[in-house]
């Protein structure tokens, strides 16, 4: 079942076409990877999906609904959640409160008490329960990443958009994250996780399917191993003459 | 037909006055463009310029035109002082902090002025003749004000585009991080831009007195602050050129409105024009907050 569909989505900034007539589909429960060098339009794509930008052309359909013109806060209750490349915690709130906010205003729309309990659950799942009463702005960058993830999960999303969530992480942490994500996909059934990564081996471990972006356009998509070994993809990352 | 003559005359005035408004607002736009700080106390600096012109004329018989460089230097110095004592520490603070700080600075200046100069209304009279041009009657002082404004705006344009420092400032407005990477000392740009912004604002106070040499008093600021913001937003907060052009438009609007409202019996045009200006501001902010000429 198709959960998210982008039809010929285009976004321009002045003279630059950041996203160029992109078609994309994400299935329920899928593990999709979106890959591409810096500037290929990945983050813009995310911003379009989560509603920070409105496309100049094209449509975005989520769970059967046309959400193209919807403001960001209206999309979240439908089941959309995302993390940011540079984490954006609510600094003066505790870790617990941060995650609880996700539960309060996400799809589950819980009240304060419930949300705080839900936050505890997710903190335990991710493994940062011991940090729960710490002020978010005092966390290390890595801890902030984990918190972002917990917060996004607390929103009970149908689709989870992760932005470079594993960049710069220790391999063992990466393992842990991938394990956790697989667990969530299986247990919550409906959660779809798509990652945007430079880390090829992480993508290979995690994603069943991969989409490669280049200069705002979709270059190629398909089964992970096949796509990542495609000469065009290698060229895009490493340049023509290297191979 | 006297009404339309008056209207034409007023509109002409409005365009001239608009150029002064434009210069008055350029400082505001510059400070926002470079430092991303909204100087809520803007009007207080215009007031200082006005008083500079007044005292120079009254005490030392210095004609207002010559007070312009004096006001500029005074403004630059004041700008540097304020920057290094307060603004510098607030560069990375949340927006609320700078709003409150500039607000308080404006009030402080007004209160010190009141303490030193009293709260009376003062004025002076510098009459160098009048130009008669068809239905339009324009004192030379106002023409002079327009001329000075245009020259200053022109000089600034040349400075921004042709000099190293001016170009560096434009770079910081465009892209702070990019400018840093290019080796531009952004900290220095901040202090210089702030000082220039304040300098321009104080200077414009002198120009304002060329237009309205009476009614100078320590609380005249807030009026101009409101006007400046309408103009700055209209022209695009962060775009000094937009501010200049928007100043014209506002000058026209203000004088036109004043004339037309004055025709309605029982209405005080002075007060009501301000109210209309305020509503106008809200409308612009709603429809196109980046201003008619972009810049944000």
């Amino acid at each position, binding site marked *: 079942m198709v959960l998210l569909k982008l039809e010929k989505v285009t976004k321009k900034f002045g003279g630059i076409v950041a996203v160029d007539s992109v078609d994309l589909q994400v299935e329920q429960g899928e593990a999709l990877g979106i890959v591409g060098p810096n500037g290929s339009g990945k983050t813009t794509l995310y911003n379009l999906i989560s509603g920070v930008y409105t496309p100049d052309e094209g449509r975005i359909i989520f769970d059967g609904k046309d959400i193209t013109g919807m*403001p960001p806060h209206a999309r979240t209750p439908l089941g959309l959640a995302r993390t940011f490349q540079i984490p954006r915690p609510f600094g003066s709130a505790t870790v617990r409160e941060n995650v609880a906010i996700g539960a309060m205003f996400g799809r589950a729309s819980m009240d304060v008490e419930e949300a705080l309990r839900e936050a505890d659950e997710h903190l335990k799942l991710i493994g940062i329960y011991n940090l729960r009463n710490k002020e978010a702005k005092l966390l290390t960058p890595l801890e902030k990443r984990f918190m972002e993830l917990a917060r996004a999960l607390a929103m009970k999303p149908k689709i989870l958009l992760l932005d470079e969530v594993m960049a710069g992480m220790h391999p063992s942490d990466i393992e842990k994250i991938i394990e956790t994500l697989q667990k969530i996909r299986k247990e919550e059934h409906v959660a779809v996780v798509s990652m945007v990564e430079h880390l090829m081996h992480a993508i290979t471990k995690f994603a069943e399917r991969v989409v490669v972006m280049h200069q705002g356009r979709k270059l190629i998509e398909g089964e992970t191993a096949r796509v990542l070994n495609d000469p065009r993809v290698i060229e895009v990352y490493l340049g023509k003459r290297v191979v | 037909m006297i009404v339309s003559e008056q209207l034409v005359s007023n509109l002409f005035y409005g365009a001239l006055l608009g150029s002064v408004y434009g210069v008055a607002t350029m400082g505001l736009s510059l400070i926002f463009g470079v430092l991303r700080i909204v100087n809520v106390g803007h009007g207080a600096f215009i007031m200082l310029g006005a008083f500079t012109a007044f005292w120079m004329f009254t005490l030392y018989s210095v004609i207002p035109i010559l007070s312009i460089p004096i006001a500029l230097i005074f403004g630059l110095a004041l700008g540097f002082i304020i920057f290094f004592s307060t603004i510098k520490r607030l560069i990375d603070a949340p927006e609320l902090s700078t709003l409150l700080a500039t607000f308080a600075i404006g009030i402080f200046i007004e209160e010190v002025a009141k303490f030193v100069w009293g709260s009376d209304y003062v004025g002076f009279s510098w009459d160098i003749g009048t130009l008669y041009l068809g239905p339009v009657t324009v004192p030379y002082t106002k023409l002079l004000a327009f001329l000075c404004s245009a020259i200053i705006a022109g000089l600034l344009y040349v400075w921004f585009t042709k000099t190293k420092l001016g170009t560096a400032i434009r770079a910081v407005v465009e892209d702070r991080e990019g400018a840093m990477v290019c080796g531009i000392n952004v900290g220095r740009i901040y202090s210089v831009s702030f000082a220039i912004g304040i300098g321009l604002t104080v200077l414009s106070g002198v120009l304002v007195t060329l237009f309205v040499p009476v009614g100078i008093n320590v609380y005249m600021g807030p009026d101009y*602050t409101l006007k400046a913001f309408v103009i700055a937003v209209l022209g695009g907060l962060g775009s000094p050129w937009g501010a200049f052009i928007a100043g014209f438009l506002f000058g026209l609007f203000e004088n036109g409105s004043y004339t037309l409202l004055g025709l309605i019996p029982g*209405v005080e045009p002075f007060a009501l024009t301000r109210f209309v200006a305020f509503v106008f*501001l809200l409308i612009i902010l*709603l429809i196109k907050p980046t201003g008619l000429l972009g810049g944000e």
Partner: protein
Amino acid sequence: MNIRAYKPLIPMIAVYGVLITIALTVDGMWQPVAYFMFYIALGQAFNIFLGLTGYVDFGYVAFMGLGAYGMGLAIKNFGHLGLIALPIGIFLAVIMSMLLSLAVGAVALRLRGAYFAIATIGVNEGFRYLVEGVRLWGGTEGMILSGFMRKTYGREMTNFFSTFLSDVLVILIAFSAAVVTIAILNKKMGYALLALREDEDAAKVMGINVTKYKIMAFITSAGFAGLIGATAWTLKLTYIFPEDVFNISYTVEAIVIVMLGGAGTLLGPMFGGLIYGIMKYYLSVIFPGIQLLILAPILIAIVVVFPEGLIGYIRKKARDTRLSEYLR
């Protein structure tokens, strides 16, 4: 409802208790305590907006002014019906200030902080110019109600209004504003405001309809401002002049009180209002007319050096102690 979350009201009730006791028992202290309570109420009301959203409304006093006029109009037009004019006045005051805030807020709160602040700069002046320019409600001459009130209600009753009654009402308003504040802090709305205050864009992506919450905080704060204007001004002074009731110095004082005590905290405005009220009361005897001259640098100093305010600072220090349950 989680009773524990309302514990911070206890220190507040204690302080109020002490103040009221002093006012009632010590000779001549009723007036100063009422004076302090005015500033506490002002701070508490303004905190609901400035403190919780992080947005500043430079035209805030306009809501107080409108509230004052609301009460004035009620007394003037319904006084002949007897004492019922007073509750009508309260009602009018709240409605008028809330309507204005809804009108301004629905437009201006869609904007980000700095733009919003700019938009509010002219509100109090704008309104004052409107009242004076269109000669509304007496125009520049304002409303003088004392004669009318004495005729309608008699001398003693009018005195009662302008002394005891208005002061008690101000105390009640201050306390209600505090209760409303902590209720907000404990509910979803409080968290939504926290999020938008910290990072408005991230809050939007989290599913928070920031405009809605900003407006809610704004009209609540405005409503209380209206109540203060109606009681501490009209009822107490029995006259209303536009240049007084739209005077920006009240906004400045409100800002200082909230920032001094700790923006966004429950107890902050109470301590801020108390400290400020005490300072002003005893110092204005020595320095009449230069309060803004002193206030302005104080505000700058607070913003630069001490932005979290008194309660904010204490909370930081008391973070892991039992005391923190009582400090919000």
